[in-house]
């Protein structure tokens, strides 16, 4: 009888085990995200010169230069005398954007990224504000650096942002962001005139890259809120 009870207890604990492991992983994911947030807690604002380079077949533009202003938690402004197309998601570094209260965080596992240990987390926005429906972050666990971000957006868009860092004013900030795009060629539901004959159900997609180079960082200069009143993102 005693043996049967022990067996039942063992089986009960076995059923709980995956849930316990999952909860532990979940806590680990949240801990890393919180640590990343703490690492940049003292970063209040920055100003940086940017150069945007497009390598997309259907997006023919020369390299564009502009000045980018950022202030926590989500204020951003692009200033340029010329016309500039700047990627809305993944185009600039905002360490305050991964607030745990805004996302459901799922731990995907540990990976090796650039020969270093990294963790992959999936963030699903609790309230969808922009085009992004979910994000997969690859974070270097030792350096606490966001290395890669895969954004899945509405309309079947996929954007992968790859970050390269330098140290400025005591903070590790991007010197280079490479955005790899995989987008539908046309907006959903847009007719292409008379010639819109279905092409065997195959959807045309646009693939390409946008690379953004960051230089001349000025960190924590006390940017006023008024600066962000026009052209808010």
């Amino acid at each position: 009888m005693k043996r049967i009870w022990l067996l039942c207890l063992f089986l009960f604990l076995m059923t709980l085990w995956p849930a316990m492991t999952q909860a532990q992983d979940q806590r680990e994911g949240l801990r890393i995200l919180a640590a990343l947030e703490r690492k940049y807690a003292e970063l209040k604002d920055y100003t940086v010169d940017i150069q945007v380079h497009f390598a997309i077949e259907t997006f023919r533009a020369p390299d564009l230069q502009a000045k980018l202003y950022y202030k926590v938690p989500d204020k951003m402004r692009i200033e340029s005398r010329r016309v500039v197309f700047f990627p809305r998601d993944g185009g600039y570094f905002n360490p305050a954007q991964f607030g745990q209260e805004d996302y459901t965080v799922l731990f995907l596992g540990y990976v090796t990224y650039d020969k270093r240990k990294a963790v992959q987390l999936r963030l699903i926005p609790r309230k969808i504000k922009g085009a992004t429906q979910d994000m997969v972050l690859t974070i270097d666990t030792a350096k606490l650096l966001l290395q890669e971000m895969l954004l899945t957006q509405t309309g079947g868009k996929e954007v992968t942002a790859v970050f390269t860092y330098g140290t400025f004013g005591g903070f590790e900030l991007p010197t280079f962001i490479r955005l790899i795009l995989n987008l539908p060629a046309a907006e959903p539901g847009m007719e292409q005139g008379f010639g819109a004959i279905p092409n065997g159900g195959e959807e045309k997609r646009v693939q390409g890259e946008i690379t953004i180079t960051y230089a001349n960082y000025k960190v924590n200069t006390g940017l006023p809120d008024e600066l962000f009143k026009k052209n808010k993102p």
Partner: protein
Amino acid sequence: MTLFGFEAYKTFSRWRTYISFGVLALIVLMTEIVMRVSAKEIVNSMMKPFQRDFIIAGNIVNAWFITAFIMNSLHFHIPFLITLVAGDMVSSEATAGTVRFLLIRPPSRQRILNAKYLTALFYTAVLVVFFALLCVVVGLVLFGSGDLIMHRLGQFSIVFIPEAEIPVRMLLAFVAAVWSMTVVASVAFLFSAMAENSIGPIIGTMAVVICLLIFGNLPLDFFRHLKPLFFTTHMLLWQGFFDQSIRWLEIGTSALIIGLHNAALFLIASLIYRRKDIKS
């Protein structure tokens, strides 16, 4: 040249010649003023596919953008305004009863026809140049300058032309626009050489232009094969100057096809006019 001078004087001394200029001025001014008032709305609707993915900074709705936008309607309203005069060039002599007085003079029929055709082309060029100057000057006053952004409606497709390159490209585009409109003048001139009144050539030319535009856009293989032969297909050759790199081969081919149309249409007009019976 003297005959051309006389014909040009006759054409530009008629008040009806200026109807086209007035209509063009009205179209351009109304369009630009309305666009000035609702610039934000235009940017939102035209850049909708990009605004979700990009933050767009800088002056997009500028003089060059507006000019290119209005130029897109070139093949609709300008042909009609051209036919008003080109369709009247030869037939008006019959309507006014002056054809016999004109043709018993020493200059040959061919020389008279040459002068009239050159006048029709000259009028076409003046009309397009007037349109260009109006678009650019009013545009610069109302919207200022900037880079030119061209995009295909509803598609993830952008062409970005730096401000420094635009004046030359715009000039070339308008030269191409003048050339493309000469084919409409040639069609109207041919009908005018065939007719005894001006209404027929005007309606006939517009009917040809509209039919060819419709046929060229029908998704049927029969018309797809014929499309490269329609002059309406090549009337948009000016758009080749607004790609990232100028599409010279495409522009050259279209210009050549338009030139061949012009030559053929004028040749037919000459044959008809030289054999025309003016005694009955």
